């Protein structure tokens, strides 16, 4: 079972964090700090897996963003690597050639997509089509519901 997933930039800024095990805020911060440091210190050609405490860390860099998952001892590293890739594909398909900024400005979408794909640290739906269908349905619901906005809101002043 996946314990958590972190997305962070080359500068070490966390862009997304998903925790599948209950941990205090303090622990989460410490783990993120430690891991970001560890992974950023590694050279590009190194292997994508490392041992960290009693967990296996699987990570991969896509452009400026690192995707990093912690799985348990009996979990399969390669399939976790492809979990990361499938998630990147989902983001890419949804945003249309995704970049770090999309995830910064639409972080809630990144969470929604992740929830459709993984739940409780396990793969829920691995079909790209099915995941995106669920998200698009939600977007559709949203557009119908969208109320007209004020002028102030339009220029972003509230």
């Amino acid at each position, binding site marked *: *079972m996946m314990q958590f997933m972190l997305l962070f930039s080359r500068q070490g800024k*966390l862009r*997304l*964090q998903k925790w*599948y095990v*209950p941990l205090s805020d303090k622990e989460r*911060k410490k783990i993120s700090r430690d891991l970001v440091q560890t992974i950023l210190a*590694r*050279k590009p*050609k*190194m*292997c*994508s*897996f490392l*041992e960290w405490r*009693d967990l296996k860390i699987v990570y991969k860099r896509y452009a400026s963003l690192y995707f990093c998952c912690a799985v348990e*001892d*009996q979990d*399969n*590293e*390669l*399939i976790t*690597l*492809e979990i990361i*890739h499938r998630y990147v594909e989902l983001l890419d398909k949804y945003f*249309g050639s995704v970049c770090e900024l*999309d995830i910064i*400005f*639409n*972080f*809630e979408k990144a969470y*929604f997509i992740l*929830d459709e794909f993984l*739940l*409780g640290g*396990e*793969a*829920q*739906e*691995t*079909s*790209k*089509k*099915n995941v995106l269908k*669920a998200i698009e*349905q*939600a*977007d559709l619901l*949203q*557009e119908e*519901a*969208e*109320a007209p*906005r004020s002028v102030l*809101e*339009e*220029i*972003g*002043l*509230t």
Partner: protein
Amino acid sequence: MPAVSKGDGMRGLAVFISDIRNCKSKEAEIKRINKELANIRSKFKGDKALDGYSKKKYVCKLLFIFLLGHDIDFGHMEAVNLLSSNKYTEKQIGYLFISVLVNSNSELIRLINNAIKNDLSSRNPTFMCLALHCIANVGSREMAEAFASEIPRILVAGDTMDSVKQSAALCLLRLYKTSPDLVLMGEWTSRVVHLLNDQHMGVVTAAISLITCLSQKNPDEFKTCVSLAVSRLSRIVSSASTDLQDYTYYFVPAPWLSCKLLRLLQCYPPPEDGAVKGRLVECLETILNKAQEPPKSKKVQHSNAKNAILFEAISLIIHYDSEPNLLVRACNQLGQFLQHRETNLRYLALESMCTLASSEFSHEAVKTHIETVINALKTERDVSVRQRAADLLYAMCDRSNAKQIVAEMLSYLETADYSIREEMVLKVAILAEKYAVDYSWYVDTILNLIRIAGDYVSEEVWYRVIQIVINRDDVQGYAAKTVFEALQAPACHENMVKVGGYILGEFGNLIAGDPRSSPLVQFNLLHSKFHLCSVPTRALLLSAYIKFINLFPETKATIQEVLRCDSQIRNSDVELQQRAVEYLKLSSIASTDVLATVLEEMPPFPERESSILAKLKKKKGPGAVSVTELDDSKREGGELNGGGERSSDSAAMAASNASTPSPSADLLGIRSSAPMGAAPSAPGSLLVDVFSEAGPAAPAAAVNNDGFMRELEQPTDTSDSLLVEGSGDADSAPPSEDPADPLPEADELLNKFVCKNNGVLFENQLLQIGIKSEYRQNLGKMYLFYGNKTSVQFASFSTTVSCPGELQSQLNVQSKPVEPLVEGGAQIQQVLNIECLTDFCEAPLLNIKFRYGGALQNLTLKLPVTINKFFQPTEMNSQDFFQRWKQLSQAQQEAQKIFKASHGMDTEVIKAKLLGLGSALLDDVDPNPENYVCAGVIQTKGQQVGCLLRLEPNAQAQMYRLTLRSSKESVSKRLCDLMSQQF
């Protein structure tokens, strides 16, 4: 600012995010955030009711601020309000906020649960999924209490949508993990298993995670899943790459589901049903075959997905550990990966091989990759891969390759990453101990460890080396010499000083004969380190000093001087001060006898599990000691610290030793190579018989001969004077071609071997002589091992065995000449064939002559061939025993001695020695259970002499009465003489 891509576009949020990104400093960011928090707070507190959209936007901003790492202490209520909105996007943001930020505010939890309850019963699948996601994300106890009974119903209801089933399955899994007591098994469980058959691949993918977890906890209830999983797997594995449509990933059909199916099967033993098992084996074979097919795509995703399944299949094969064919194929496949250009695959292959190494079917196959693995340890650029290589070397280590592996690990330690040094040190220490064929190698290895990585050598490691040195008298001299040399280094690690202090304090006498390591030199060397050491080490050194006073009276004045100085007896540390004061007093008032009693040599440590192993067990992580390994080490550990003379391993050892006899190898190593070299040329069938008997079937005999004895034998103080003699001879004795007289200690040396057949007979600075012997009826075979301890060649090396006086007609000893040159550090062996013609009292003499640096060395020892070696044990009951006892009641048939116990009166020790004597130790014969009786027949060429022995200990008086009766006076007398020296 980028265009907001989809749908909602909360413009205010985007502007805020953009502002934060434009902040030039942390302070500016905090300022901007505080401004926003104030704004949101005023909006939430304002009189005007906020519309849903605004509420959603502000909640989202709060969430963003929280995810930046700032604390959020308000807004929860507004988020909870959003849950009850009937607008999907508002509800969705509300749930997201709760999922990320929930705390155990009981009031809120009640409200949240209420909202969830409403959504679960809404029959709107999108709302239901949101609610289920929230439960799965939060997974608190309160939620488990509220929904643990509801969710199984949703999961198995006929009309539930597929997407809801998927969420429900994983939601239930999360609740089961947090609160297993609240998820009650019931009618739903059997229906859950059948989800493995569901048409929707997504449902199977989600449900199988739940089923796997439930199976682990309740294997019996879920065992029907095995056949379902096998048939599902079989369908996937045999499907064409396009059959599964969107569940095919880069031409690999359903890789996630396949891996999960293989994982589920690992919760169970191999299927009992032959058909199911056959189908599964077929699947595994297909997966292995596919690995050899050319890839359908060059994309790394294709090979990753394919290999993910392959590795999971290999895990299952290893888990079953019952299909040698598959295991070997798996091993070969991993062997290919070891050289793959993808670092990831090399890493995984090393990891997976580690588990394969522990299977008896594949251990040998794994070992063939040793060179590749060593190469990986040396050349991999990535520390995590090197770590895996080190783990694998540890796992594949056995007697045949231990020296090589330990050497490689030691040399890797010099450059190893700091993060893994401690673990490496423990592993090296364990391997060195576990597979030590000779203990000088073990001592060298541990001292090297301390030299190379002293900071990482934990107490357990150096405690252990001391335990072993104390328990093995054949390595003590070597240890003292080596540690003395190591301490010469200008800067040596404090752990080295500790080991040095302890060993020299106990065994410094063994090297004191050499003027270069005379007592004072030893003391000065230790004391030169004193001032740089921590308090505990200094305390240890002070104890070593008082031991020195006992061992070497000539150092007394010097040491007392040291103890007397202010920095000792007035030391501010109370422990040091106390030791200095007490030791000083002890040395000045106690008589030599008292001092000798107080400071008697350490008794052997009781046998116990290696403390290092326990330490490694505590350290979690891969390559940590598995259960099987522990059993293994218990088995081998006994051997280690016991005599280690189990000959069942000899084939493997012989293979490694026969070609390159290692210079310092002791008997053990050589012993196994000896039969290989000697057996074919042996004159009779004796040797072959002896060895076939000494094979796996005779572990007990080995224990008798060595295990116990060596362990329990009290250390004797003969060896130090020996050394003095030996080297003294070398320097002062005029060169003479005549055999020297037997050493004064020759009889004592002989006595050490009455009850054992193997060990080190003699050792001085130049030469070590080891013995290994086997007897059968009236015949014997003795292997002598002459080791050159120097780095200089011995020239004109010759040995002569002679039987003085009447022994000539009693004993027939034949020997072959030895090679005249013994290279520095080398060891040569000599075989003697012994035949007992009639009973005898004297021992044959062994004279050794050689030139060392021009000086002729000439020494004579007594060969430990004693009459009891030709004993055949005879079992008999009490009645028979006493009947014969009475028959042998004439005065000349009996020999009796009453003597003081000189070695303590431990029952096990006594028994071991009596067994070592060669006769049968009879239980329940003597009416007094404290007494020991033995019976046997001495086999000579001419006649057989029946012997009975009775040993009566008197614990109170610390005395024994030993009575021997036999049909021949000389035999009784000789046996009585010999045995009375043993207790």
